[in-house]
């Protein structure tokens, strides 16, 4: 069984995640797109693990989940804070820092 289709799928998902980060304005959705990218990476890792016959990829995917969990907590806390201040979750509204 070739894992190439999985890799291709993962790259498509990764790309979609990227585009999502660029086009969506709601900070939470943007963040969700980042999660999509992480998931795509996970898929690639797991697929490659199978390809190479070692479990490093799976371990890595597991770590990614842990990391993602922590990141989500921190990220959502930050987004919440800024939302409470500005009453807006749009990333475009936070553009005081420029030039």
């Amino acid at each position, binding site marked *: 069984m070739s894992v190439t289709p999985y890799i291709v799928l993962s790259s498509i998902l990764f790309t979609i995640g990227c585009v999502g980060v660029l086009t969506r304005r709601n900070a939470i959705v943007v963040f969700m797109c980042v999660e999509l*990218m992480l998931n795509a990476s996970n898929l690639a890792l797991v697929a490659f693990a199978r390809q190479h016959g070692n479990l490093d990829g799976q371990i890595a995917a597991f770590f990614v989940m842990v990391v993602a969990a922590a*990141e989500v907590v921190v990220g959502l806390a930050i987004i919440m804070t800024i939302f409470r201040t500005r009453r807006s979750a749009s990333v475009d509204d936070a553009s*005081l820092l420029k030039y």
Partner: protein
Amino acid sequence: MNLSLTGVLVQAASTPPTFQKPHIEYAQLWPMLVVFGVACLGVLVEAFLPRERRYLAQTVLTLVGLVAALVGTCLIARDLTSLGGVARGLIAAEGTIVVDGPTVFFWGLILVFAIGGVLLFAERRLEGGLSAFAGQAAALPGSEAERQASSQGLDHTEVYPLLLFAVGGMMLFPAANDLLTMFVALEVLSLPLYLLCGLARRRRLLSQEAAMKYFLLGAFSSGFFLYGVALVYGFAGSMQLSAINEAVRNDTQNQTLLLIGLGMLSVGLLFKVGAAPFQAWTPDVYQGAPTAVTAFMAACTKVAAFGAMLRLLYVAFGSDRWTWQPMLWVVAVLTMVVGAVLAVVQTDVKRMLAYSSVAHTGFLLVGVLGVQSASDMTSGQVTSLQAVLFYLTTYGFAMIGAFAVVTLVRDSGERPPSSPVGPASVVGRRCWAGSSPSSSSRWPGSR
């Protein structure tokens, strides 16, 4: 498709795999462990000590921890030769960490700058007994609660453990010997920084915005890093840098996988060091974050990230140098130009320093490009690696110094340059300009 949950569970029950107790070289890793340990202690202090005693306790604890780690680093550095090997190093913790000359140097550097950072964190004489951090980050800016928090002298002493966690991640980052550890370290160092950026007491709106920008872009870039990890793993079949090196050397197939993976890994690191075109976050974040955090971040993160970059590029991909050197040249030149040109027109001193740090990154990248093996050189010549290390040292000191001055000047407005602050800031700025004695270590072309 032998999808069978029950089967797996049955397997698990039936034949337990052999497990060997991992061997951890505590003697060589303890500075890092001290940092993490003290960070956890700090959290406990936060939980159990009464509020008014936390500041002192945290400061002392953090400083003691960092100094202890620094002492440890020095001791390890002294014994480094005895660890043997050509690279004068030790592969520790089951091959995930390597403790060698550069590692120890980076540790020392990070710890020194972190101590400087802690001192800046602890600075609270300038604002009537208040630190630079928000009294209560959860309170809305401009609200009654915020005023109360200020008037009661509330202080987020959590910043000290957060700083320590970040320092721990930074120490792990250049020492990592496999991509997974590197990724974890990257996140460990990043998360506390995202938080710290948003905790400014003044200009909270900007601070929060900086935190969000840093966080979103950081997560985005770490996504690329991770995908790079996946692709390189796919190419090499292992996370170990040495194994990757082996694969790079031998495997001529699937070059695209390697190249894309390498590119994405580089992106993650270049983002951290703030090279163009990944520099967009630096000015905004440097400006919005509390100045103490900016100083800490500017100095330490860059040191750690350059350490990781050197290790990644030279240990894992060193045999394939010709593939990535042109790319890095482009980035380096772009970075220097963008940093230098844009620094000119900045009006906010922190933004200006941010762009200057970008320009420095460009110079450092040139140094990274020149790294070569020791055998290529005549004795007594300066290696590019030494140059990069030295440059990082001076750069870090200059950054800490410059931002320390910014802290001092923050409230007093524009001071005449004859005041005692002026000289120091100019020393810092001149270091930034790269022509002062202290940072005359710019040796890009040394061969």
